[in-house]
């Protein structure tokens, strides 16, 4: 028995804390609890399930290599979100033509809370897909992950003011695009704000 284990006989609280930490940073646990977040970021950004899975594989492999430097579960989740964003942007840059070709076969996977108006949601996602790359990720982090402006800034490595302006511009562009789409289709009227 080593010195560390021996000390736990006298300090059970330390043993319990260590056990909690080991459980928290358990790789399999992290994969199972974060797969939905990582896959969703990649999927909503790339709009391709195979590409999103490829990104998720790379993100988790990267986590596995750096597991020793991850301090807590919260740190791991923050780290995974940041890496998923960057890997998705890189993937989109490297496989632009391939993704464009595959977007015809785009089918929406299951959602735990499906939208009331699936057609409107589809149109909105199409409009988001036309936004510039970084702006699209800002929108995704804000409205899918409900991240704060500071968290988005930290995840993407850009100033908070840039996040604010990008978000503002993105919403203006989306309102305009949606207005145009709605005017074109007879069944969907109304104004946006």
């Amino acid at each position: 028995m080593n010195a560390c284990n021996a000390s736990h006989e006298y300090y059970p609280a330390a043993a319990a804390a260590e056990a909690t930490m080991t459980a928290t940073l358990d790789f399999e646990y992290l994969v199972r609890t974060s797969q939905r977040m990582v896959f969703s970021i990649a999927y909503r950004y790339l709009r391709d399930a195979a590409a999103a899975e490829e990104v998720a594989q790379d993100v988790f492999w990267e986590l596995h290599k750096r597991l020793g430097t991850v301090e807590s579960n919260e740190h791991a989740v923050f780290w995974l979100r940041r890496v998923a964003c960057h890997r998705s942007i890189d993937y989109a840059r490297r496989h632009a033509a391939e993704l464009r070709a595959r977007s015809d076969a785009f089918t929406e996977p299951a959602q735990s809370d499906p939208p009331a108006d699936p057609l409107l949601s589809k149109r909105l996602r199409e409009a988001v897909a036309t936004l510039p790359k970084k702006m699209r990720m800002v929108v995704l982090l804000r409205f899918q992950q409900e991240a704060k402006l500071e968290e988005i800034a930290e995840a993407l490595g850009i100033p908070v003011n840039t996040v604010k302006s990008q978000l503002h511009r993105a919403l203006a562009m989306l309102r305009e695009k949606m207005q145009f789409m709605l005017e074109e289709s007879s069944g969907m009227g109304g104004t946006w704000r």
Partner: protein
Amino acid sequence: MKHIEEELKRALAEVEPPEGLAGRVLARVAERERGRRARAGWLGLAAAPGWRWAFAAVLCVALVAGGIFYQRARTRAEGERAKEQLMLALEITASKLQIAQATVQGINSGAEAEQ
């Protein structure tokens, strides 16, 4: 009137990952880890403390042996060159002696003819 922010939350909501994703991730990580360990195995062996001294000793022996081999090869090459120069000098001397002998014989045969 539609609130775009609310609609965006619905449209971009998280989706369920494909079935078995976690299992596939774990399997691929295990496979990559095996590959990484196999690659690092030889390098790790060379970096182990005991092996480090053995590696240094082998390197020293190889350097000394290489030095001795180089020195011998160099001495042999110098000897070969000296031998070639000596042979050339002997050939030149022999040819000069032949000329001298021929000249002496010519003089002797001329003197005999006069008598």
